[in-house]
């Protein structure tokens, strides 16, 4: 257990700009082994860019990202693919492959990386779907599912390869409150049963309080505060207070 003190993911001084606009302005963040980290922040605060940098979908301009102590921003495509096998990611809109049926979606990683027959892949896919409370939908196409179902299927696909780290991009956005709470429960269960490290980005505070071990607030491209949900609630930082209470008046300028 000596490695337990090393962070699973460490982001050091990360900068990223898109055409003049600076999105990340020196982000520092550590996520411990087995921890559930929630990054909160307004729309356009750079949350999505941050997690896309962590999984190597976006190249940062400056700074380092360590996964299990390995620096990833200078890796070749093949080496990066090996690192990506440690990750699963739930996309905001699900990002299921339209042309594949549900079980083929869930089993996609298995088919690409493991030498398994179709029957075995289907069996595993069915099992993962059942874990998320989805039954008898293996053969239908993603277009036939509701938004909440898509998210759950996407989550099943993300966990099919049994990753060590899960990334959630707005897991509860765009679905009804009951389904949102069910997704929260699932995220908690993923951590407890499968002992995964996770990073979720959200602006849904109910969800953040429920699933987070620690919460980090991203504002204007920097992390302005990190702490347990209790610490965040009692933060003296006016930016944090304005955000978590959803006030339009305060240091965060919306108009």
């Amino acid at each position, binding site marked *: 257990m000596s490695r337990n003190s090393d962070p699973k993911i460490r982001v050091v001084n990360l900068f990223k700009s898109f055409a003049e606009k600076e999105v990340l302005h020196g982000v520092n963040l550590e996520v411990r082994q087995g921890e559930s980290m929630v990054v909160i922040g307004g729309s356009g605060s750079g949350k999505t860019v941050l997690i896309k940098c962590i999984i190597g979908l976006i190249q940062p301009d400056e700074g380092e990202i360590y996964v299990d102590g390995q620096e990833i921003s200078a890796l070749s495509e093949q080496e990066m*693919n*090996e690192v990506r*096998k440690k*990750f*699963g*990611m739930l996309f905001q809109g699900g*990002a299921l492959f339209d042309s594949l049926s549900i079980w083929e979606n869930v089993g996609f*990683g298995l088919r690409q990386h493991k030498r398994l027959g179709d029957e075995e892949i289907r069996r595993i896919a069915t099992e993962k779907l059942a874990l998320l409370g989805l039954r008898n939908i293996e053969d239908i196409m993603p277009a036939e599912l509701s938004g909440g179902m898509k998210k759950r299927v996407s989550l099943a*696909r993300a966990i099919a390869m049994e990753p060590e780290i899960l990334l959630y991009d707005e897991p509860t956005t765009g679905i009804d409150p009951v389904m949102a709470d069910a997704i929260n429960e699932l995220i908690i269960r993923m951590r407890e049963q499968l002992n995964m490290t996770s990073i979720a980005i959200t602006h849904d505070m109910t969800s953040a309080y429920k699933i987070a071990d620690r919460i980090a607030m991203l504002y204007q491209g920097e992390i302005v505060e990190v702490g347990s949900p209790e610490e965040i609630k009692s933060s003296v930082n006016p930016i944090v207070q304005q955000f978590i209470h959803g006030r339009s008046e305060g240091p965060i300028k919306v108009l």
Partner: protein
Amino acid sequence: MILFAKTLSWTFRPPLQGREIIKQMQEVGVRSFPVVIITAAFTGMVLALQSYTGFKRFGAETMVGTVVALSVTRELGPVLTGLMVSGRVGSAMAAELGTMRVTEQIDALYTLATNPIKYLIVPRFLAALIMLPVLVIFADVIGILGGYLVGVQILGANPTIYIRRTWNYLELSDLYSGLLKAVVFGMIIATISCYQGFSAEGGAEGVGRATTKAVVVSSLTILISNYFITAFLF
């Protein structure tokens, strides 16, 4: 160009996406078949009609068969097939990949440690490269047949002479040059359309733009490269 080079390098890396390649070959080849056949048939027919009108003026009506065969195999077969396929398949490729881009499906491929070039582009590239020559062979045959039908049935040419004129002046090199064009056109369609789809951004509107661009750019590239291939070969 960079995408073309990357595609080539991924083409030779195992594992081959057999399932995807077959799916794409069906899409590019089998489904384009009716369009290509109709195009070729009527092109051969109109060629016979037009060249007959021209040749009649200096009494060379018997050359109709030769002109149809040469124009179809060397030029119109590959070019028209290329244009039809770029309209039918190039647009579909750009629209599908563009939609995958804007709905984060391409990002999802990366997160599943799968290279999208390998999984999405290489199968389309190979399918176009293989199926276009196949379609062109059919187009050639049907085009010549169409010319024959018009020549013999409508214009009253002697069938034996028509066939002889077709065969005697047709060389294998005519066929090969047409097929070489087809291979190049296949690569052009797949590379340009996939590139346009891949770099789509900005939601549904962006996908629409990418689709239009895919068809326009690949059609123009086909026409321009057609001139240069012809100029270099002969």
